[in-house]
């Protein structure tokens, strides 16, 4: 109940501040299993994609949250589990466990996920090189559709280190799905995926 109210509050807030325009270029919003991957410049990125998705898809699409950061306080933990139904991923490497294991579980159970392959929030205009998580996921689950997304302007709403967001119109552009070609190398695929995200900036 409280989580529902919180999600409506966040949706309202995001629409008031950013307009949260979704622009579907290259694929329609559709209830198939997908991995949305996007550039990452602000905490608000996650909320932006989440708010830009239609209501029906929102409940089946789970964002990924860094475990160390998002479980630090009870409130952060509550908002990521109860409102966003996030998947926790450990950022610090432990040898005994694959850090992507929670993602495999989620994909196994049919959920879509939102992924920021840069791993951390960036300052520059262009996204940083992608980490290999995206490659590993699509290698293991080739049937899941990879949808690139470009989040525009959000770094102006809430730059890294600021707490109060300001109103600036933002949009999320979803592009045509990217597929892993037969025999494609890890680095080549990740660079191609990154360019697919950057290309959406000027659509």
């Amino acid at each position, binding site marked *: 109940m409280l989580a529902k109210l919180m999600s409506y509050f966040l949706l309202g807030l995001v629409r008031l501040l950013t*307009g949260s*325009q979704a622009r579907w270029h290259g694929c329609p919003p559709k209830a198939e299993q997908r991995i949305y991957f996007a550039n990452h410049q602000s905490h608000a990125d996650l909320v932006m994609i989440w708010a830009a998705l239609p209501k029906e898809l929102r409940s089946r699409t789970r964002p990924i949250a860094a475990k160390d950061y998002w479980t630090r306080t009870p409130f952060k933990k509550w908002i990521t589990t109860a409102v966003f139904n996030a998947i926790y991923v450990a950022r610090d490497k432990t040898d005994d466990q694959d850090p992507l294991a929670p993602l495999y579980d989620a994909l196994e159970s049919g959920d879509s996920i939102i992924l920021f392959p840069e791993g951390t929030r960036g300052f520059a205009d262009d996204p940083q090189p992608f980490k290999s998580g995206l490659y590993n996921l699509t290698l293991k689950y080739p049937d899941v559709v990879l949808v690139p997304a470009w989040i525009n302007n959000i770094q102006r709403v809430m730059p890294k280190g600021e707490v*109060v967001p300001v109103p600036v*119109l*933002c949009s999320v552009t979803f592009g045509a799905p990217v597929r892993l070609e037969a025999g494609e190398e890890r680095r080549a695929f990740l660079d191609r995926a990154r360019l697919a995200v950057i290309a959406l900036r000027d*659509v």
Partner: protein
Amino acid sequence: MNQYLKSLTATQQIGALFVSVFGCLLLISIVAFFLSVRDRGDDATAEAWRTELSRIDGVLRTSWVMVFVFWVGWLSGDTTTLVLFAGVSFFALREFMTLSPTRRGDHRSLILAFFIVLPIQYALVGTRHFDLFTVFIPVYVFLAIPVVSALANDPARFLERNAKLQWGIMVCIYGMSHVPALLLLSFPRFQNKSAFLVFFLVLVVQTCMVVQHFASRQFKSAPAAPAISQSFGWPGWWTGVLTGSLLGGLLAGLTPFAPGQALALSFVACVAGSLGHLVMKALKRDRGIPNWGRDGVSVTGAGGLLDRVDALCFAAPVFFHSARWYFGL
């Protein structure tokens, strides 16, 4: 008819005004609907006709929303009206800032503009502190914004960034807040009827803009500043301004003014509004976009609110100050 209208109370008169405005809008919408269902074939003239019709449809839709907003504002009292206009300011400023690139160092200044300056300005209107209200932004905020920006420790394009922010605040907050301020201005022997004054201003300025739009097409004169606007020419401008002023003179009965005064004030408002619109066009050219709305810009989702209200934002302060000065209020 006139005698009957005069015998009504202020509330009844305003009610009658809304009934007639809603009636007119309904009539025009019905006509536009029947024009749109009529089949005109597929040639070039029909295509041009359809684009024109869809433009009229857009204007009609805005008019419905605006009149509805005024109506709700009037029904629910001054506070709600203030909140509604503050909302319009907020969304207009959001559009303005979206298209003026800001840097990280501007973040605190933007917070100041949206969440502190805007509410204070409207609170000053609501509490009728008119003397402070007219100087708050040009005097105090003028200093406060660059101070906050300077403390952010980023000298790159400092003047340009601050100028943009100041401009956005002047047009979207300062200009817009003068419309509800008219509601609270009390003229002698004109109690509780200030809603007419707002209606008068909006109608006169909008008429001027619409007439100017169509007249400049008819005249096909050389544009006065072709790099900024292809459609702005002096004959069309004069037609618009004079038509708006004449309408204002005819509507003097709605206002506390004598016909001559109403004509002069409408003239001032029309000149300010139409030239302000031209200035906003120049700003848009500078940013390389045809309008503030979504047709022009690909990635921002702006709705084009600023395109519709910019003339009003420039006309309202001039109208407000000349009325206040002339009548010594």
